[in-house]
């Protein structure tokens, strides 16, 4: 009986592993297959400014810019905030409160992104408009701020785990050497956890790149690069918001549909590169104690 159960267990584990691999490969293949017509007809015109399906023009530069800009803003806000919060929950907060605070923060990750989008439309976007005296609060910055809130939990939890998993003797030894508490954090703990923290940030980056709903509602959805380009308080477009807005109305099998697949493929490549990057980086980070 035991042997039998063991076999079932093994089969189950193997099957689910292969299923995951197969799905990933299929998504990759199908996206590439569907985007092939657009890639072959449009070619390098993909890297131009104009997107006009009616005239078969599919330039993705403005979306690429928007995606990178929004993600950069989100990371700029969320990384320092997230790491400092994690240092607080892991090192300063008494252990019995840590779990409560941590689960509250992790709850943030469970809120559906459409809710963030609605809050953004109702509150954040008017605030931005009044604060900067803009005619519309739907800007790259607004989307970036919302995204920052959305990726904070990822950064906080993973960084907190990284710090918390450092064996107690490092802290005790540092203390024994006469370091102040903030020196222990700054000189001992953070350098040890550095690579894991970087991993957390890269994971958050992946989520920021792929987030659709909240960004789509807030970014303004216009295929333009701001003038001048660093004026991020203007509306723009991201790859995901373009997909979210147009995929339903493009006819299946048309060049338009294929072009949308192509930008999806582009996004997937971006995310995959980052994920592989993260894993290589993290593997190097495993300490040999």
């Amino acid at each position, binding site marked *: 009986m035991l042997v039998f159960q063991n076999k079932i267990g093994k089969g189950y584990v193997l099957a689910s592993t292969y299923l995951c691999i197969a799905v990933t490969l299929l998504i990759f293949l199908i996206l590439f297959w569907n985007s092939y017509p657009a890639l072959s007809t449009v070619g390098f015109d993909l890297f131009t400014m104009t997107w006009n399906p009616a005239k078969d023009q599919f330039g993705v530069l403005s979306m690429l810019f928007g995606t990178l800009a929004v993600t950069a803003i989100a990371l700029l806000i969320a990384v320092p905030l997230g790491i400092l919060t994690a240092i607080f929950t892991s090192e300063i907060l008494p252990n019995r409160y840590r779990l409560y605070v941590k689960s509250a923060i992790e709850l943030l990750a469970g809120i559906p992104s459409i809710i963030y989008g609605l809050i953004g*439309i109702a509150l954040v976007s008017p605030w931005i408009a009044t604060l900067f005296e803009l005619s519309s609060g*739907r800007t790259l910055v607004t989307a970036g701020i919302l995204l920052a809130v959305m990726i904070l939990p990822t950064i906080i939890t993973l960084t907190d785990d990284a710090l918390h998993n450092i064996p107690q003797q490092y802290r005790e030894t540092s203390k024994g050497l006469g370091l102040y508490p903030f020196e222990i954090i700054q000189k001992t703990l953070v350098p040890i956890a550095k690579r894991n923290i970087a991993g957390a940030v890269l994971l958050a980056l992946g989520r920021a790149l792929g987030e659709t709903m909240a960004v789509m509602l807030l970014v303004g959805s*216009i295929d333009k690069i701001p003038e001048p380009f660093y004026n991020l308080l203007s509306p723009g477009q991201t790859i995901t918001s373009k997909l979210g*807005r147009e995929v*339903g*109305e493009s*006819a299946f099998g*048309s060049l338009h549909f294929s072009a949308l697949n192509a930008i999806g493929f582009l996004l997937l490549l971006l995310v995959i590169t980052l994920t592989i990057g993260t894993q290589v980086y993290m593997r190097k980070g495993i300490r040999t104690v």
Partner: protein
Amino acid sequence: MKNILVIGFVLLALSCSKPKNDTVRVAGSTTVLPVISVAAERYMKLHPDSRIIVNAGGSGVGVNQVGSQQIEIGMISRDITQKELEQYPETSFQIHAIGRDAVVPVVSSELYNAGITSLTLEQIAKIYRGEISNWKELNGPDKDILVIDKEASRGTRHVFMEIVLGDKEAVAQGADLVLGANNEEQTALTQSDAALGILSNAWLNDDVKGISILMPDGSIVEPTLENIINNKFPITRDLVLVTNGTPTGQTKTFIDFIMSPEGQEIVKQNGYVSISK
């Protein structure tokens, strides 16, 4: 543990069962949506065994999903384009006009109160082309115009751009935001005090004011129901349901219901013009 798995699989299998054959799926234009969702509710009360599922998405979604035969009825508020017809050679689109509507240029109420109550089509075209960018140039307050455009396949945009810029797929160089459904546009207009947008006549209210069109002969045409009925207002259109071939069964009786006096009453209550007069 095993039991839970078994129950889970059974539930999964049950939930995958096909929807009943007489389910009518409707999707598309958010201009037609308010009429159809009310009509569907009334219809389901009259025919308790029927099921009608109504979704939004925009005219483009309506045409595509009927074309790919995912739904029975598409709601559209524009003509089907040549490209769309070519895309689905196996689908024989049949259209059923259920009402009339006007596409109205709208401004934030602050502007309306400051005196922007009518514009010529040429002025509106210049704003969308980006040649006029401040309300000062139109005797309004000194504020940059927030030009709100719509997604390319939206029916309201097709009808509007056809008349204003001369091409239903024209690119609006002066646009600042691109939004989708009527309600999304409404929100953006309400939140701004310097916006110009495009809305269906039925979506106007105190915060989003439809402006009149100043005609070349000097007359001012307001977006009123009479002006839509007698075709005086320059930007009008039919609200249309589209099916694949001649409708049958539940689909047919539902469309008949909308055409009936009771159905047309719903059209009127939503601020559109009934086709039966």
